């Protein structure tokens, strides 16, 4: 195994984060904190509790998940798209490094950044909202699983994109709406029965629900289903990446 190669890619990607601290870390932390200020402290104090949890605390898992999905996708897609855009991808393609090792480097770095951000946002939100974490290990596990899964998804987008617009279109047009409609700001059980059933086709529901369970022990769908759906999506992404490297799709002519 080319561990030096994996480390080189990982360090290169992480170095980009430290070089652009304001954009990579401060910006998502500040923008997510604004949600806590507005929906948690200001409006949240006038809203009723959901499942016995204050509204400010209820939305924390969903907001962390919203940031986690967007950052995982954006970090991983940018990480692989930029070498394609600048032409430096030639070096990765000509190196004695396997597809698995390439993915470990890029996706590992993207997921690491997202996890660090998720934990930072959780710590920051504590300044505005009081919350508990009932199952801390499960919380970290969900955080890591989601970060890895959506970094894999981001990697696919980065390979597929042949312009900056395409790089943005899936996070903006699909992921963000799905997250907003996936129970981030409300419990799925609050919807009319028809829309509750429709919502179950939204994969983000399972992520938010599972993550919320790790905080408060309550969930919209069964924990096992949440975990199963997340792992299934991860396997689908991994399979697609395998196909990309096998065929050389948009990487190797």
């Amino acid at each position, binding site marked *: 195994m080319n561990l*030096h190669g994996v480390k*080189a890619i990982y360090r*290169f990607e992480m170095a980009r984060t430290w070089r652009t601290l304001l954009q990579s870390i401060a910006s998502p932390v500040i923008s997510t904190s604004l949600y806590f200020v507005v929906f948690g402290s200001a409006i949240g104090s006038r809203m009723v509790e959901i499942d016995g949890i204050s509204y400010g605390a209820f939305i924390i898992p969903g907001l962390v998940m919203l940031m986690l999905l967007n950052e995982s996708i954006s970090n991983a897609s940018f990480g692989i798209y930029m070498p394609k855009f600048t032409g430096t991808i*030639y*070096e990765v393609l*000509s*190196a004695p490094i396997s597809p698995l090792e390439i993915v470990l480097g890029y996706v590992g770095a993207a997921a690491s950044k997202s996890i660090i951000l998720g934990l930072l946002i959780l710590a920051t939100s504590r300044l505005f909202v009081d919350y508990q974490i009932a199952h801390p290990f499960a919380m970290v596990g969900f955080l890591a699983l989601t970060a890895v899964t959506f970094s894999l998804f981001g990697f696919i987008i980065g390979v597929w994109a042949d312009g900056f617009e395409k790089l943005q279109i899936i996070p903006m047009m699909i992921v963000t709406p799905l997250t907003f409609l996936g129970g981030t700001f409300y419990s799925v059980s609050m919807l009319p029965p028809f829309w509750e059933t429709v919502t179950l086709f939204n994969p983000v529901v399972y992520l938010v629900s599972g993550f919320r369970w790790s905080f408060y022990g309550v969930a919209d769908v069964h924990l096992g289903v949440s975990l199963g759906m997340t792992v299934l999506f991860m396997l689908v992404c991994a399979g697609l990446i395998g196909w990309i490297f096998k065929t050389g799709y948009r990487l190797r*002519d």
Partner: protein
Amino acid sequence: MSNVIQIERLNKTYDSGFTALRDVNLSIRKGEIFALLGPNGAGKTTLISIVCGIVNASSGTVLADGHDIRRDYRAARSRIGLVPQELSTDAFETVQATVTFSRGLFGKPANPAYVERVLRDLSLWDKRKDKIMALSGGMKRRVMIAKALAHEPDILFLDEPTAGVDVELRRDMWNLVRGLRERGVTIILTTHYIEEAEEMADRVGVINHGEIVLVERTRELMDKLGRKELRLQLAEPLATLPEALSDLPLSLEAEGQELVYRFDARHDQGDVAGLLRRLDEQGIAFRDLRTRESSLEEIFVDLVHNGRKGD
């Protein structure tokens, strides 16, 4: 001398339907400098890209130092360094960081002393902490070479290494290439500057329309396919060539003031002494004479555009 690159029946047709390589067979000998010449779109970069693993071949085999580039890609690629034609660099990285990255990417443990040597050899040591975007085009080219050398390759591909660089840097590159060859590195370069191949290459390969037209030792190629020319400045201009000299490949130029004798360096040894004797018999005097040999560039143009091939 053993072959370090062995290419057999290599074909490449892109998804667009464009066939870039047709049944290419080529052997590169260990430790030589091999120049691959060809017009734009001839297939040079595709050939290099396949050997380096950037492009997949449609069919055929390539061995690098005995290792199949697909089945045994780790061993094959670890021996190869590539300096691509385009100046593709990470603009925001420092010189030292990007060279260190390349070394790690190719599976080598960190070796600051070696990286320092490479940077010093390429006059980049003073710029090691500079961001690449702050460097001139020539310096960026040196960074590309440093990156390619970072993992101590045995085989180095230079795709148009001196395109757009100034004369001084070109001379530096030539010296660097010769220095690498002395250390046992095999060098394969593509170039548009024919004098570069003439100056440096041990052997030359000409590729056109995806086919290898010819592979020959540079000197032998010039001996075999080169033409020589004897130009006599006449004491008195001639209106026409005398009938007695019509069996010779002579022509009158400069309004009859120059008599030019052109001959094939391989087939015709050119009986210059005989020509001069016959001119004397005809009473044609000359004030001065000069000879010249055709350059590799002329041979190349002849091969590519006129389809002339060596036997």
